[in-house]
């Protein structure tokens, strides 16, 4: 997997080669601070925990992760560099994993930059740090899912805007899957297994279970398998497009 490592390094450097990375990180931090302090009334809750902070991650990521992932393949296709990359003597898996990993680590860095909040909460009271750590891990895994889906969308087009929109739409479907609104719509006619299957695909449900404090194994397995499946799909998309 040396090739995946090389691709990872190149891609991560590419994020920082332009001011876009800085802009993104500022938007991310401002967005998350806005949600936490103004919408969720972080201070008024009078609780020393970070649930108000993590509550918004599935929604914020819905826009921010596609923004990170949209360039992964679309930019290469637009510039033609994909021809260089895909004629190197490496497996497409190495390229797919390397690119996704770079985006994921970049997202992880954005999360790390929110850690002053964690320190603040500890200063104000005595939160359950185990819960907070579990929530961070859950949040990062959630970001990995959004990014793996965004990478697939990016592999479908050379237009980054289309990749962005596609990723938002697909991720939105996964977010909405667990909500009663959606489940109510199918409850009347769909068999129970289907309803349960839909509900079990929900990003929010799995994230909430992790964020509630236990690094719940089924939820971890769900995120890991979803990421793996999306990366597999990404490889398939690249292969199918060669024959298009």
């Amino acid at each position: 997997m040396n090739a995946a490592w090389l691709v990872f390094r190149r891609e991560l450097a590419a994020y920082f080669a332009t001011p876009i990375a800085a802009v993104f990180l500022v938007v991310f931090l401002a967005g998350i601070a806005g949600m936490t302090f103004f919408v969720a009334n972080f201070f008024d809750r009078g609780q020393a925990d970070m649930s108000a902070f993590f509550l918004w991650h599935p929604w914020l990521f819905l826009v921010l992760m596609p923004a990170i992932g949209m360039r992964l393949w679309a930019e290469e296709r637009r510039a033609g560099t994909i021809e260089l990359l895909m004629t190197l003597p490496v497996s497409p898996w190495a390229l797919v994993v390397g690119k996704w990993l770079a985006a994921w680590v970049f997202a992880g860095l954005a999360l790390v930059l929110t850690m002053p909040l964690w320190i603040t909460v500890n200063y104000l009271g005595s939160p359950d740090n185990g819960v907070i750590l579990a929530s961070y891990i859950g949040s990062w895994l959630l970001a990995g899912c959004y990014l793996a889906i965004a990478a697939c969308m990016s592999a479908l087009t050379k237009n980054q805007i289309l990749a962005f929109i596609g990723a938002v739409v697909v991720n939105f479907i996964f977010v909405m899957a667990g909500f009663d609104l959606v489940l109510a719509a199918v409850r009347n006619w769909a068999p129970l297994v289907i309803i349960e299957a839909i509900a079990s695909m929900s990003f929010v449900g799995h994230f909430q279970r992790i964020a509630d404090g236990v690094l719940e194994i089924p939820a971890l397995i769900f995120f890991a398998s979803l990421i793996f499946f999306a990366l597999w799909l990404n490889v398939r998309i690249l292969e199918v497009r060669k024959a298009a």
Partner: protein
Amino acid sequence: MALVETRALVKRFGAFTAVDGISFSVDRGEVVGFLGPNGAGKSTTMKLIAGFLEPTAGSAAIGGHDSQTDAVAARKLLGYLPEGAPLYPDMTVAGFLDFVAAMRGMTGAKARDRLAELVERIELAEVWNRRIEALSKGFKRRVGIAQALVHDPDVLILDEPTDGLDPNQKHEVRELIRSIAANKAIIISTHILEEVEAVCTRAIIIARGKLLSDGTPEELMSRTPAFDEQGRPRSGSVRLEEVFRDITHPNVSPAADTTKLETAGA
């Protein structure tokens, strides 16, 4: 065994057939020029050999390894310059060539020595630490060529390697190709017929996806008179150009041309 071999290659984009049953092979020591009008299918054929595109029918192989089913082995032998010499604009020349060398499994002293040799040979020293987006077109093209030569491949496929270069640089690239040709199989595409005369041992003419002619530049030239009506010798590229037009424009047949010449002469 031929280093490059295509068998009845076909590539369709929807209903449009871009490559229509092309078969040929290239041996070590040959420099094959791909000629043909715009949209003839030259670049598409090259992408099929490189394995970037999958053929609709037929197959391509490099060193006996199928470009699709044995892709990694085939690509190890291949240096490829895609059309337009695409590069990562945000990388430096050094960073980019290091990346390509590492992706090709070259590390440490081996990579360093080879890159040093290429810098010398392709004259990249003055831009070595510059970002690629800030380079002139000529330097970009040279970086693209360097990238294809990093691992000293047996097979080189260069899609319009001299496009956009000034006459001096064109000359240098041709010299470079000539100097490495002896132990490689090289395919270049070009719209410049004097280039064919200068570097190619063989010329393949493609139009509308079909291979229309395959022979040495001399054989091609011999299809037109070596002297004009006044008995002056005609240059190779003028003669090649005439043959090129005859072959790729079937409605203006060579016979009709000759008649016109005769009438003009009479």
